[in-house]
């Protein structure tokens, strides 16, 4: 079921650029990430799905850049949410590979995604309001620099959080972790 949901997300991510620019070139370009995503989900292999997610984003960016026009706020937020669901579905599929799945595992994941969707929607509404206010206050000449600095800052901040969380280990180092991944077969 998780894989089907991931597959549905991959199809949605494939369809999103096509909806904006329905041409054979866009349809053909989207086939590679779709194939990677389906392969990763079917084989419960996480890495092709991550690559597919990045390719979906690149294709979506290219199409939006080519089409131009006003920003599609809700569509973009849906694409972002689709990426999260795709990546998490691939991850969960790998975790549950050849495993007995206990009651409530899938339901808890679905509830988390619904919560994340609500949070994303709230953040989009709030962010749009803030962006309108900031756009009128800031000089337009400094916008690219601010955008680049902001993007870099956010990515560095997140990388710092990830690295810090990775270092936050307990004082007792477990032999299982020292020996590598204790769960064979999870790729």
């Amino acid at each position, binding site marked *: 079921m998780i894989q089907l949901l991931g597959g549905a997300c991959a199809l949605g991510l494939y369809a999103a650029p096509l909806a904006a620019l329905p041409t054979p070139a866009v349809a053909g370009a989207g086939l590679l990430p779709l194939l990677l995503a389906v392969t990763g989900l079917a084989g419960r292999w*996480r890495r092709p*799905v*991550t690559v597919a*997610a*990045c390719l979906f*984003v690149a294709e*979506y*960016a290219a199409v*939006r850049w080519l089409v131009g026009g006003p*920003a*599609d*706020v809700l*569509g*973009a*937020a849906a*694409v*972002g*949410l689709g*990426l*999260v669901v795709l*990546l*998490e579905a691939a*991850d*969960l599929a790998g*975790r*549950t590979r*050849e*495993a*007995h*799945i*206990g*009651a*409530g*595992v899938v339901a*808890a994941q679905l509830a*988390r995604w619904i919560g*994340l969707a609500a949070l*994303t929607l709230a953040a989009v509404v709030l*962010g749009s309001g803030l*962006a309108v206010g900031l756009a009128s206050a800031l000089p337009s000449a400094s916008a*690219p620099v601010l*955008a*680049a600095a902001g*993007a870099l800052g956010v*990515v560095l901040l*997140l*990388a710092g*959080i*990830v690295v810090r*969380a*990775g270092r*936050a280990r*307990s004082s*007792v*180092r*477990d032999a*299982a*972790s020292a020996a590598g991944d*204790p*769960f064979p077969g999870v790729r």
Partner: protein
Amino acid sequence: MTARVTPLALGLLAAAGWAAALAVLSARVELVLVGLGPLLALGALARRAPAPAVRVEHAVSADRILEGEHVTVTVTATADRPVALLEVLGPLPAGAVVAAGRRRAALRLRPGHPAGFTYEVAFPGRGVHDLGTIVFRARDRSGLRAWEGRCVMPHVLRVYPRPTPLRTLPRPVHPQASVGDYVSPALGEGIEPGDVRPFTAGDRIRQVNWRASLRLGTLHVTQRQRERNADVVIMLDTLAEVGVPPGTTLDHGVRAAASLATAYLARKDRVGLVSYGGVIDWVRPASGRVQYERLADALGRAGVIFTYVAKDLGVVPPRVLPPRALVVAVTPLLDRRFTRAALDLSARGFDLVALVVSPVEITRAALGPARSVALACRLWALERRAQLADLRRQGIPALPWDPAEPLDVALAGSGRRRPRLAIAG
């Protein structure tokens, strides 16, 4: 437990970073919004989360089984606070296979509500296995942080070789003093009639053979043969083996040794074991059910430990190899050191029988069908026939056994007759 950031977090970070970079390059605000979902998901890493106190326990349905049997492993997990996903990897020793269920589970834990799973493990081969280590990984609600740990609860499972019932056994030439199932050449108390002799003072009336007395005109009594047990020492060759587990020559030899031990113990004999290999291991001869457990335990552990050093049987205590014991040597005759040791025992007056496990068919099956393999196996079989003839010339009864055939077929060739009568002295 050790905390880790899961690969999912790195995947989300890559997607968010990529979207942010493309947003700057393409100057499109949609890309910022595309990155918003992964960013919000990653935000869960910003707050500290203590490691959940996960307790994983397991129970194994048996601690001693026979080859080919199953045990049921039941794993139960509890936690002091909710765990969105607990991955558990149950124990599976090398050589064992999961017969039913799955040894891996993804569970959701709530405080006070234990969750668990069950699976069955089959053990096709003998051995001593540890089923005590369980590896688990608890993930937080976001799935971005995981705590790994292992629960070690020693649980030793002994898989004994499966004995086959035997109808024929090599008969010991020299019975011992204790009462048993063998008809001794010596006359005395017993059930089996032995000889008829004239009545002498002190003979009991119940021993009088009235039919012989009437025919011969004087009183005659029936003498009976004593029934005695024997000391049997099984000498297992652990110097070398061929084949693929659980069907190596040593595995077949161990099964044969277990079958012999079971059959001799059922006849009230005292049975011992000497594992002759890189390390010499032994079990002193004794009888009874406990002795079977000791022998099965030692046979379960038996393995080939490679060494160039030729061990001397002098290191074996005399109580392990009692005088006049029947020694059944179970060997594939792959190493000349074992042949020398067997000849040494024979020269020291032990009643020795060699059960020779044929490695030819096992090797042929392992190598697969090929003309060169078939030719080599034929030559090898001829060479082994010469080896067996050499052993017989040295006075050692050699019983060739192809493991594809029942062991009884090989033992039927032992052809030992009942001992001649002797006067009790």
